[in-house]
């Protein structure tokens, strides 16, 4: 289909006719700014085809505000070697004329022909909408809708499919899809979309499980029942056996054992009694023997005592022989001692006399010396007494003296001050003349210092009062007076008349003190402890001398051969020791002698006593008796031992312990058996009752019924299962076959798509779904396949894919012998320059087969499209 010419008149901004001629068979580029009329051209082409000429819903075609306009559109195009001329006007003048070759069509008929040719529908009423546009809706891309391909393909779907169908021939099943839907519905009755049982199938499965569980329960009950029946049978049989009371036999055996045991126990008691008797017999024997042993021991003792007695006698005799010797030795020692004592006494007296004489001599010398010293000391003492008295009389207090000295100096100083300030009255009186100064009569020449107001009486003249200047004078006078008073007081106190006298007296005192100190030192040297002490010593010495003389007088004169005290003492000591030894020896001898005689006496007594005892007739008889008794006991012992041994053998043979165990065993066996029998009776009754109850329930019949139901359910379940499996298989197969077919049908479209796509993305492919709508873009980047859903692609990419798809559809349609005209209003405005360049190659390629009208407000983007652009402005001007 080739559009050659179009002319529009009274359409929107084109009130005046606008004619575009000589359209190219390939690309036709229309450029112009916004509002320059590009969209109006597109709208006019659409209206010419899609809008019914009778439609009143096309007011938008009229120039603005001009309701009287009759918008008119004329198109001329070639199709199948025929020239088609369409003239259509709306609203004020509703007409549609179509000339094809030599034929003319008018009105609706003309419009139907066009719709059939291009593949679209008219609306029932009102304005034409996207869903009516069919193929042109797909190929004529409105401004800003290039990316939205889904709806457009859907609306064109039937036309596209028929185009495919025609190219492939009628191989598809006429009713395949409907059949698939039915199979799916059938399957949905049994299975969910995920393949799980649902509805009746699910219910029957559940039922099956329930029945199965109930059946298991019943089986368990039946099993219990059977076991109980078996148990009942056993119990019945045992009960029959119990009827004979088999435990009684054991009771009898226990009884027998008891009797036997009683007998054996009698033996045991007898045995114990005899054993006790034996023990007593043995004890008696021991006693007899002990007694006899004691008798024998006494005899031995008697002999020993005899020996002891003889020994004591010998000892005493020996001692008595020594007596004289001991006594002699003692007497000698006593004598020696006495002599030594006398010698020592004499030696001591001698020594005393010598000492006393010496002391006496010494004492005389000492006394003479003391007498000398004492007289000197007494002299000094008297002298000192005198000096001290003197000092006491002339004593001057040094402090007071010092104060006096100071006061005197102050007074002197004051006098000098008075001199300095006093009013000096100098007079030189004529001889004989006198003046009365106060009470003093002044004559001659002189000078007076006036310290106080003084009246100067001048006889005959009167009186002059001299008033000394300044207050100091008066003060000085007062101070002088004070000092004078103090001095006078002090002098009185010191009992001197003046200072000089005081100082003299002070000097005298000092000298006296020195004398006293010297004499005191002297006295001290003579009598350090004082004179009285010295005197005492003298007195004591005299007394001693008298004593000594008395003592000496008493003492006899010393012997000529006198020996020293020390020697005498040594002699005495020796004698003393000898004496002591002798005395001790004598004393011990005496003790020894006493003991020996005592020992002899006691051993005699003891021997006698024992002798008497042993020799007593009682004792003799007793010994005989004991020996007899012992013999008897021995005989008894032997008898008992024999008896015990034989009885023990008897007892051991009877084995009473085992007998006791037998009794226990038989009794317990009998008890247990009887008890078990009672338990069995109870269990039997219990079981009987239980079985009667269970039996009445008809368990096996119930089970059979349930098994039957379960079988039914199971069969039904299998049927469902088989049907589900069959439906699954069928559906799977149907879908698989259908898909294979679809792929085969889509192959041509795919080929066209890929042809364009290679120019944009080498090795990429774009899949379409069974409605031929682009689905996934598959690209290979860095060796990995990357799949992107169409809807998820960027706006620009979707626009590019959208255009590629449309071009492919156009190729498909063309191959199917359908007319194709492609209109792009401001397409690919979202593509980057690189992609745009590739898209231009694609467009140029498509233009080799299809006529393309491309409207743009960006002429610079399309300069390299290989065609001269038509500027809308210049078109208008040329119109």
């Amino acid at each position, binding site marked *: 289909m080739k559009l050659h010419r179009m002319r529009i008149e009274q359409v929107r901004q084109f009130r005046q006719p606008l004619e575009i001629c000589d359209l190219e068979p390939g690309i036709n580029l229309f450029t112009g700014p916004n509002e320059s009329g590009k969209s109006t051209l597109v709208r006019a082409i659409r209206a010419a085809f899609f809008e019914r000429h009778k439609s009143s819903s096309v007011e938008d075609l009229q120039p603005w505000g001009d309701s009287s306009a009759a918008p008119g559109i004329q198109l001329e195009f070639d199709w199948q070697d025929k020239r088609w001329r369409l003239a259509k006007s709306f609203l004020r003048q509703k007409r549609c004329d179509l000339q094809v070759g030599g034929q003319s069509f008018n009105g609706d008929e003309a419009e139907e022909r066009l719709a059939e040719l291009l593949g679209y529908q008219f609306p029932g009423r009102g304005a034409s909408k996207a869903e009516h546009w069919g193929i042109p809706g797909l190929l004529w891309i409105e401004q800003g809708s290039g990316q939205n391909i889904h709806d457009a393909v859907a609306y064109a779907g039937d036309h596209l499919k028929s185009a495919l169908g025609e190219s492939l021939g009628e191989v598809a099943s006429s009713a395949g899809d409907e059949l698939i839907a039915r199979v799916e519905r059938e399957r949905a009755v049994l299975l969910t979309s995920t393949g799980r049982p649902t509805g009746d199938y699910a219910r029957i499965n559940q039922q099956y499980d329930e029945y199965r569980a109930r059946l298991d329960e019943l089986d368990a009950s039946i099993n219990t029942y059977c076991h109980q029946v078996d148990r009942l049978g056993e119990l019945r049989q045992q009960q029959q056996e119990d009827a004979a009371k088999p435990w009684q036999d054991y009771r009898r055996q226990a009884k027998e054992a008891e009797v036997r045991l009683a007998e054996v126990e009698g033996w045991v008691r007898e045995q114990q009694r005899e054993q006790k008797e034996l023990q007593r017999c043995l004890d008696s024997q021991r006693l007899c023997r002990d007694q006899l042993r004691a008798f024998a021991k006494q005899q031995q003792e008697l002999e020993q005592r005899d020996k002891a007695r003889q020994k004591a006698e010998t000892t005493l005799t020996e001692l008595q022989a020594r007596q004289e010797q001991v006594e002699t030795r003692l007497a000698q020692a006593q004598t020696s001692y006495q002599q030594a004592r006398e010698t020592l006494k004499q030696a001591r007296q001698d020594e005393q006399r010598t000492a006393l004489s010496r002391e006496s001599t010494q004492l005389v010398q000492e006394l003479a010396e003391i007498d000398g010293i004492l007289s000197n000391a007494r002299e000094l003492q008297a002298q000192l007494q005198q000096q001290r008295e003197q000092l006491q009389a002339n004593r001057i207090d040094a402090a007071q003296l010092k104060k006096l000295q100071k006061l005197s100096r102050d007074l002197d100083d004051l006098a000098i001050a008075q001199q300095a300030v006093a009013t000096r009255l100098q007079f030189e009186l004529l001889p004989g003349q006198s003046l009365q100064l106060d009470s003093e009569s002044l004559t001659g020449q002189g000078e007076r210092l006036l310290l106080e107001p003084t009246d100067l009486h001048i006889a005959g003249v009167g009186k002059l009062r001299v008033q000394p200047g300044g207050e100091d004078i008066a003060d000085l006078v007062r101070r002088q007076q004070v000092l004078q008073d103090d001095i006078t007081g002090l002098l009185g106190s010191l009992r001197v008349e003046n200072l000089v006298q005081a100082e003299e007296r002070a000097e005298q005192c000092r000298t006296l003190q020195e004398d006293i100190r010297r004499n005191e030192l002297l006295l001290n040297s003579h009598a350090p402890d004082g004179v009285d002490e010295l005197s005492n010593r003298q007195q004591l010495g005299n007394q001693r001398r008298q004593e000594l003389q008395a003592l000496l007088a008493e003492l006899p004169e010393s012997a000529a051969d006198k020996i020293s005290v020390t020697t005498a003492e040594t002699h005495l000591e020796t004698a003393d020791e000898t004496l002591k030894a002798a005395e001790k020896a004598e004393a011990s001898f005496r003790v020894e002698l006493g003991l020996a005689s005592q020992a002899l006496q006691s051993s005699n007594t003891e021997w006698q006593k024992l002798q008497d005892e042993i020799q007593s007739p009682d004792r003799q008889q007793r010994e005989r008796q004991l020996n007899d008794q012992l013999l008897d006991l021995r005989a008894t012992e032997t008898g008992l031992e024999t008896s015990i041994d034989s009885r023990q053998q008897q007892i051991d043979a009877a084995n009473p312990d085992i007998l006791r165990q037998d009794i226990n065993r038989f009794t317990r066996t009998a008890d247990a058996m009887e008890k078990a029998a009672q338990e069995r009776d109870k269990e039997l009754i219990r079981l009987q009752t239980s079985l009667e109850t269970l039996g*009445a329930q008809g368990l096996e019949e119930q089970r059979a019924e349930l098994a*039957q*139901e379960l*079988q039914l359910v199971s069969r039904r379940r299998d049927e469902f299962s088989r049907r589900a499996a069959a439906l699954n*298989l069928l559906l799977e197969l149907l879908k698989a076959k259908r898909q294979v077919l679809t792929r085969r049908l889509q192959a041509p479209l795919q080929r066209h798509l890929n042809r364009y796509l290679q120019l944009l993305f080498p090795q990429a492919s774009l899949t379409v779904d069974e409605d031929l709508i682009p689905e996934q873009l598959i690209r290979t980047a860095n060796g990995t396949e990357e799949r992107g859903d169409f809807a998820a692609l960027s706006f620009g990419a979707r626009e590019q894919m959208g255009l590629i798809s449309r071009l492919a559809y156009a190729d498909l349609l063309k191959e199917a012998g359908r007319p194709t005209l492609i209109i792009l209003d401001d397409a690919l405005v979202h593509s980057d320059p690189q992609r745009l360049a590739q898209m231009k190659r694609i467009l140029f390629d498509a233009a080799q087969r299809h006529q393309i009208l491309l409207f743009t407000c960006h002429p610079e983007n399309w300069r390299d499209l290989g065609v001269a652009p038509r500027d809308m402005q210049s078109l208008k001007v040329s119109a």
Partner: protein
Amino acid sequence: MPRFLHTADWQIGRQYSRFAQDDAVALAEARFAVVERIAQLAAAEAFDAVLVAGDVFDAQTVSDRTIRRLFNALQGFAGPWIMIPGNHDAALAECVWSRAQRLGAIPANVHVALTPGVLEFAEQGFAVLAAPLTQRQTHDDLTCWFDAAETASGLLRIGLAHGSVQGILTEDIDSPNPIAPDRAQRARLDYLALGDWHGIKQIDTRTWYSGTPEQERFKNNGAGQVLAVEIAAPGAEPQITPRPIGQYTWQHWQVQLTVDSDLDVLLQRLSEVAAPSVLDIALSGQTSLSGNYRLQQALSVAEARHRSVQCDFADLRLQPTDEDIAALHADGYLGEVLAELRECQQTEDVETARDALAILAGLLRDRQLQEGME
């Protein structure tokens, strides 16, 4: 001349889980009904007694109602019923018989031998040597004592036992309870009435299994009858006549379909079988879709006629023919699916593939019918 009926294995209380609910109920009911018919037969032909050789009940714990119903079913015959317990209803310490006694359900003319012993029926002219089972299973021959048992002279010696005759019924026998094959001769029996084998079986001239009077297995072994026994005098050879008494015949067919005419034969046979029956048909081989359709139609008709018709298609393959496919208008890929399913039957899960094929064919046929109506 004593005449009596010999029967066994009534298996009262048996349930049939392989059948649909109402069929199963009817078949269980039939077991009571056959007892009633035995009573009628005995009464109508004035038999002297009815001997039941064990397994009267199918289980020990049947419901009280079942017990009462069984004894009620005996009312039609007032003569003596002589029964022994079998392995299903053995005389255990607690058993269906003790329950029946407690319930007071056993009429005076019913003699149940719960312990081994001789029951003399002088009036009828015979003594019954009863060997009841007192255990579920025993490995001793319970009829041993027959040899030494004394009976009044002039009375027939009739043995009544339940178990498996050694060396003859080694296979497929219900219990191991053994019976010596020459027991009748050794014990000088005039007749040995046996139970446990569900078909009619003659062991020797005097020893018979009567089989169950109402069939309950797909086994063609003479089940569904009772034995009418006539013995002229002690020592005389017994005259045995099997008498059909069962309601349903159970038939099991194994049919191989290879060519279309095989199907025709089957459909013919199906239409001719005596009603009411219990049918179990196992199919193998293959059939076309149209053949399958015909088969289904015929089975549907048979189900209405008979007590139960069960058909196992597990080994039957569907082979759609070109005509099938054309008839179903399975064009385009549907045709491919049909073909593939046909292939699947050869290699993979036959059953699933056949079912899928049947479903597809059904859907296509439905569609055609709809289109036809439109």
